[in-house]
């Protein structure tokens, strides 16, 4: 029923005629957002990097509670230490807090503590999905002085990983004769908001379409889970006639190959790699992985479930060994960090702890990025192997835990060369997360009247043995020596 409702919703909005008769006046509905940001270092995770400033535009919208909020991209809020709005009407500066953020859709709403500071600001009307080729207006402010209107058009619709998540979402590709865009600028069709900008490519501006904005605003502002679901499997195009023949679907001219099924997918044990997916809900899927969107035409099938919610049922038609099967399950929320390697650390840093001068971390995408722009080639090759080939294979509560470096101290003498080394076990207890590290360290090995902590390392690197009491006792000394002011990341039996 929900699927049919969703389809009707799309059809209705797809048919809505645009209103070209009045031009939108932005000063009443758009504000300048100033964000101060400060990220953490990945290699010395107690150190925060230098403070930077960004300016975005915020658009006044109404939430599901009928209150006014300021819509920006989630990107605008990441690593923020302070956010404020500057009204164009009177240049008043008001501090803001993050009301709700969804990294999957790259959307966020902000609000002031004092709601009166929004007086005089008018929420925009959110418009429908718009066909490619349509003319649009994008409003921006280069110099933080005055909003300017730039005309452009929608060149195409594509599905891409968001800036703040690996979740794939539809994006408008806008053709606008201007650069340095992509700062949450509102995009209008007539006097209706149809997108906000999220980034700039070589030829196009990327913008998040109104279908995502509507969905994001639908759920209550206080909800903390993403309303964007996933079916938990990945697919690949099925263009090769030989491959189709080997999968017994040569008589079909559509359908795609299921490449991977995550172990916590709602469809786990019902669909398998090499099954051929021919229909999702009511939509046939062509061999290029597209379905026919009522407004946008052929776009990747993942946009079907972008419009749904966790808990919504979704049926799949598959072929296996030439036989047609239908399975139907409820979608689950997409959580970017439900993988082997942390994908986003926007709400919290990937956990780390210092024990005996060893910096022990859970591997994250941000840590891989510390190798620079070419990290996908130049980062540690073992880490990259897991990132490219093992990350999607979900193992419940399993992370890659490693020693990133050793802060030299007499307690760890001789172990300084151990950098970027994965830990297999501690005190014979398998290590699957930082929590398991803490638990294992808390149970030292007793031998010869001493207590030891024994780290078994991967890839033939051997072991690290520390005297447990000395390791714990070294913490203050190490903190002082290396100017580590935050003490809560030191291992301490008393902290748990």
């Amino acid at each position: 029923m929900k699927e049919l409702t969703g389809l009707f919703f799309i059809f209705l909005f797809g048919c809505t005629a645009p209103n070209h008769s009045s031009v939108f006046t932005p000063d009443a509905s758009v504000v300048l957002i100033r964000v101060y940001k400060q990220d953490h270092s990945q290699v010395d995770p107690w150190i925060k990097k230098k403070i930077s400033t960004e300016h975005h535009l915020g658009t006044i919208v109404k939430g599901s509670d009928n209150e006014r909020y300021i819509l920006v991209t989630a990107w605008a809020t990441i690593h923020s230490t302070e956010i404020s709005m500057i009204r164009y009407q009177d240049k008043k500066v008001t501090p803001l807090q993050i009301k709700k953020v969804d990294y999957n859709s790259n959307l966020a709403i902000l609000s002031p503590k004092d709601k009166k500071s929004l007086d005089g600001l008018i929420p925009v009307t959110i418009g429908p999905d718009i066909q490619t080729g349509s003319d649009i207006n994008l409003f921006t402010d280069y110099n933080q002085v005055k909003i300017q209107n730039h005309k452009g058009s929608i060149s195409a619709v594509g599905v891409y990983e968001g800036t703040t998540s690996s979740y794939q979402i539809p994006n408008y590709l806008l053709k606008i004769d201007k650069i340095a865009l992509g700062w949450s600028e509102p995009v209008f069709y007539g006097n209706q908001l149809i997108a906000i900008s999220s980034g700039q490519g070589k030829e196009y501006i990327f913008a998040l379409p109104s279908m995502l904005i509507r969905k994001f605003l639908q759920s209550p502002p206080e909800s903390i889970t993403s309303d964007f679901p996933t079916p938990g499997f990945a697919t690949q195009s099925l263009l090769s006639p030989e491959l189709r023949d080997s999968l017994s679907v040569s008589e079909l001219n559509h359908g795609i190959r299921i490449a991977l099924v995550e172990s916590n997918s709602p469809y786990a044990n019902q669909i398998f790699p090499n099954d051929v997916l021919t229909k999702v809900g009511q939509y046939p899927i062509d061999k290029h992985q597209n379905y026919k969107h009522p407004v946008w035409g052929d776009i990747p099938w993942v946009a079907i479930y972008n419009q749904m919610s966790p808990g919504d049922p979704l049926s799949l038609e598959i072929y296996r060994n030439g036989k047609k099967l239908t399975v139907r399950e409820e979608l689950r929320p997409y959580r970017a960090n439900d993988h082997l390697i942390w994908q986003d650390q926007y709400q919290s840093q990937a956990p780390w702890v210092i024990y005996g001068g060893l910096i022990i971390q859970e591997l994250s995408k941000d840590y891989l990025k510390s190798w620079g722009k070419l990290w996908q080639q130049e980062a540690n090759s073992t880490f990259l192997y897991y990132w490219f080939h093992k990350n999607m294979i979900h193992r419940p509560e399993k992370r890659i835990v490693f020693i990133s470096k050793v802060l030299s101290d007499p307690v760890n003498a001789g172990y300084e060369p151990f950098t970027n080394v994965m830990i297999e076990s501690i005190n014979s207890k398998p290590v699957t997360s930082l929590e398991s590290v803490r638990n294992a360290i808390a149970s030292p090995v007793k031998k010869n009247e001493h207590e030891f902590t024994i780290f078994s390392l991967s890839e033939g690197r051997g072991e690290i043995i520390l005297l447990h009491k000395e390791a714990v006792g070294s913490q203050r000394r190490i903190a002082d020596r290396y100017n580590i002011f935050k003490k809560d990341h030191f291992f301490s039996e008393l902290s748990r």
Partner: protein
Amino acid sequence: MNFSVLITALILLVQGSLTGSDILAGPVQEKDLPQLRKSVFKVRVTTQDPDFRLPWSYLPINRSHGSGFYIGQQRILTNAHVLANSRFISVQRDGDPESIPAYVEFIAHDADLALLKVDQPDAFKGLRPLSLSDSLPVLHSPVATVGFPMGGEQISVTKGIISRIEWRRYVHSSAHSHLMIQVDSAINSGNSGGPVFQGNKVVGVAFQSFSAAENTGYIIPVPVISRFLRDIKDGTYDGHIHAGFRFNTRVNSNRANILFYGLNPKHPGIKISWVHEWSTFYGKLLAKDTLLSINDHKIGGDGKVALFGERISFLHIFDMLLPDENLRLQLIRDGKKLTTQFKVKKSLPHPDQGNLYVKKPRWIVHGGLIFTPLSRNLLNSFGHRWYKSSPPLYKYLFYNGEFDADFKGITEYIVIAGKLPHPVNRYINLSKSPVVRQVNGIEIESLEQLSTVFYNNRSKHLKIDLVGLSEPIVLPQHELETAHNEIIQKYHLPSLSWTGPDEDGALSIKRPHH
């Protein structure tokens, strides 16, 4: 007594009290130089390296030269890298206008040494073979490098001093380390293979330099040369035996290790972390063993032994052994001291991490796809900074695949190095780093096995699954024969495969027929 005479005598007395009588001999005696230099040859080489990405093909032909020296029995000693992949070799002795053809008798890529043979005995008329010193030169002692470096045509003599003696990687192989001596004299292109003298003895062969530093040249010392000459006595070069284990130094100096394993803090030894199944040490050494001594040489916590008046990696002791020679180890295992003695053996087949110098790399073209084993040479084909620019999956498998249980038993990883476009493969888009995992459900562990699987396939399809999540490749079996004939014609292939045996590129050029 005259004061200046007294000072001179004191200086001489001090010099005489230093170890190494060669210091007094100087780098080369002036009176000996005219005779010694006659035994030094210019070695001219025309080379042709195979192209590991189009493995039936070759890179442009190159000409280069190095140096070498006469050691008797019509043999000239030089570096392997001077002769690698050579197609034609000629030698010219200092002072002689004539160039004479030569051929490679033995080549040791793992030690960067080689022996040239010249069939014309007259080529050595009036020459004395150069003698190898029976000891290592000491630090700061003077040496002279003789050869034919770039910058001129005539023989060159450059003086320097011994800067360092240590265990280091030999670049030619890139997978082997041996004893090496650093000198501060210039060792330039063309010097390679030339003798380095102290007095009238050869103390080493000039062979590589460190481009990032000034005045840093390296020579292969006599012990490594002597081992090479010993090895070839039976007519076959067996090569250095890979240690095949990993170890950590200095960790046993940590108090925790000493207490846990009951070690002697004054003799902590080194900790073994891994032993490969193919290693001669497998079963003799275990992970977590503490190795205390090797052939009665005490190993320090730094992994070094006292040798030649220096501290040198303990691996040198093992490195000098030939197959079936004895090795005695003293170690601590589970708190108990043990002594084990055994004859070392050549390693079992295992993934080779060194540069290959074969006449023809092994390959198969099937369905227009080029299958070849992953090698250091293939990684090098990604450019000068291949360690950064080559695909991460290739690097992972090359360096760490042996430790991954998913790849247990695989002796070589077969990659698809490229595609020769043909309608039979028009739907195949290769990922950045395709590595073959299975073919029709059979795990592939070597190129020979892959060839067998291809040849024996009777199924309608040939399905190739790759490592990771890449789309499988499916080829239509019934179209392949026609396609192969067309591919051979179009791309001028000599055949559809070459699966060995491997033949050394330099050794493949046989001695001239008389």
